[in-house]
């Protein structure tokens, strides 16, 4: 009896395994490629905790592709895309990059989480595939870049500059920094501290909280005791909203700035009335870009949702890539890379694009937002 049962179970397991193997097989095979088409890879987190951002960005890229194709494609070929999910996880991102390379993509657009994008830089570099990074912007990416990746979002040092500029404009003398220990947050805290101290001013508190924590009363007590004139939160909105609420409840009246990780509208929704008057160093939201009004309308019509914080940048990234391919005059990776590097004065909806020696955006694209009446509005 027992033996029969276990044999049955074994058979079931084998059948299940066969299904999973054969079920996967058609997916792994490269799609049939017509000579008049060109395959572009998209690498974004379309599942997991930040999937919302990833899907926003994927939509924006697809919108750009449909526009390019409607205008006759690139070098006479129609663009088709293939998406690989990086899950905002370094291990998954490595697999996603390999998958795209196996499918023989000409170039890749994407990259939301800095941590996940980092290990893929050398993989694309070794394969000779250019990568246009639409959102990821930690300064740690610069050192790892073998020259094939281009960052069209401003880097962390520019974000720190924006925050510091505002602190100084508000006459703040001492600041407190709070991070969540993630790669991006730690990078931003370190850069902000360096720049602030270089300006001859003092950082009076420097704290790191654990993601998922809810009670920050001990932190609030130390901050209230040191009483810095301004607070800069460099993590995501879940903890950011709680910290803001608990600081304001404790009677903290200084300037609070949150970084782009907290720029989601959910921050204001969670912190409620306590969010009023909180500033945010944010990426160029399509909502605040004069050149993006038709993009927003098209996006709404096509996907029936509002474009998120990074949709504008992703849309620009795809158009920039098409522009570079046209300028290169070929689908050769090295030619496209050189064309990307030579970009000067490409007009995207989020502004002009030109690259530094390090393949980063040659200007700051951060905007300063303030929470007013339950939503983010431009502060400057």
């Amino acid at each position, binding site marked *: 009896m027992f033996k029969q049962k276990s044999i049955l179970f074994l058979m079931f397991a084998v059948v299940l395994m066969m299904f999973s193997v054969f079920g996967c097989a058609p997916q792994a095979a490269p799609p049939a490629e017509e000579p008049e088409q060109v395959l572009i890879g998209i690498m974004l987190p379309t599942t997991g*905790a930040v999937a919302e951002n990833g899907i926003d960005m994927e939509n924006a890229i697809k919108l750009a592709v449909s526009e390019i194709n409607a205008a006759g494609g690139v070098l006479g070929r129609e663009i088709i895309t293939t998406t690989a999910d990086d899950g905002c996880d370094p291990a998954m991102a490595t697999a996603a990059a390999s998958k795209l390379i196996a499918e023989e993509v000409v170039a890749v657009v994407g990259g939301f989480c800095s941590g996940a994008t980092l290990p893929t830089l050398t993989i694309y570099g070794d394969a000779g595939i250019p990568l246009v990074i639409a959102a990821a912007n930690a300064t740690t990416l610069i050192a790892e870049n073998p020259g094939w990746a281009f960052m069209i979002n401003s880097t962390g040092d520019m974000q720190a500059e924006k925050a510091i500029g505002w602190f100084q404009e508000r006459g703040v003398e001492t600041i407190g920094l709070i991070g969540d220990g993630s790669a991006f947050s730690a990078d931003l805290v370190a850069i902000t501290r360096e720049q602030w101290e270089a300006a001859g001013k003092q950082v009076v508190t420097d704290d790191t909280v654990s993601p998922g924590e809810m009670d920050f*009363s001990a932190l609030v*007590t130390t901050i*209230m005791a040191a009483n810095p004139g301004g607070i800069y939160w460099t993590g995501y909105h879940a903890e950011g909203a709680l910290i803001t609420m608990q600081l304001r*409840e404790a009677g903290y009246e200084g300037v609070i700035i949150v970084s782009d990780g907290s720029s989601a509208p*959910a921050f204001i*929704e969670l912190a409620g009335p306590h969010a009023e008057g909180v500033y945010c160093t944010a990426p160029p939201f399509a909502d605040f870009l004069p050149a993006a009004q038709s993009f927003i309308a098209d996006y709404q019509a096509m996907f029936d949702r509002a474009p998120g914080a990074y949709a504008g940048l992703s849309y620009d990234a795809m158009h920039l890539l098409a522009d570079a391919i046209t300028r290169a005059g070929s689908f050769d990776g090295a030619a496209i890379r050189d064309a990307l590097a030579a970009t000067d004065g490409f007009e995207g909806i989020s502004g002009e694009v030109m690259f530094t020696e390090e393949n980063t955006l040659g200007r700051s694209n951060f905007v300063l937002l303030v929470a007013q009446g339950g939503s983010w509005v431009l502060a400057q």
Partner: protein
Amino acid sequence: MTLWDILLQQLFNGLLIGAFYGLVAVGYSMVYGVIKLLNFAHADIYMCGAFCGLILLTFFAPNIGNTWFGIVVALLISMLVVGILGVVIQRVAYQPMLKAPRLSILITALAVSMLLYNAVLLMTQGQVRAFRTGIVDESFFVGSLRMTDTRMVLLISALLLMLILHLFITRTMYGKAMRAIALDHDTCRLMGINVHKIIALTFFVGSALAAAAGIMAGVHYGTVHFFMGFLIGLKAFTAAVIGGIGIIPGAMLGGLFLGLLEAFATQIPFIGTAWKDVFSFAFLILFLIFKPHGILGRRVSERM
């Protein structure tokens, strides 16, 4: 603020965090006491309690209100619902495993934890939800100590719940039965105690308390999310071990102790917020080396 004022404030902060830890920790301890199981799903029960409260307050606020009266009603209903969820989990997942090797039931507990966690993740699409109530939270000062109405009410109700539990365990027949089962299942059965019923009751009480803590956290912090149970579950488990796992007053004491330890660690130079968890867990290791049975762990003969 002078250093003493700061320390006094941290004492109060620590007591409140500790009370939350304590409420969750008793659940771990009770279950360990009766069936020697580390119930990993307990942290997710806490999270389910918070969401149950959120749903009740969102949909029934017009009927029950969303100020203190409504919150108490939502709290009691959620305790009942989540208590029953705890019993269902015990009946479906743990009861058939009682005679199985200890490791099997431990893995089952992990599976239940994953199940609850992912179910809520899918239902909420991973978003953090705001927990709005109609309470206008006023700060007031006692000397230099800043308090709010909510924090006072929560601290007192948490301590009250623990006191009620203590009386229940020590002064009632059911409590006596639980303590007896902790000693020996078979003898209890011979004495005519319905062992399965008492185990179910233990899960009910433990889960209900976790739900209460979950809703209190929602009311106090104003947000709830699917991973809110993870960190507090880890801390509460630590608290239960510090207090002597299986001993209920120990779990309460352990919770308060850990809460205070964390709050004061924040004030120690070079530890601060970044290292406070490292400090707490390093302390746990040291503590267990010197006192492996926990604060109240001497009464090894009777664990409950």
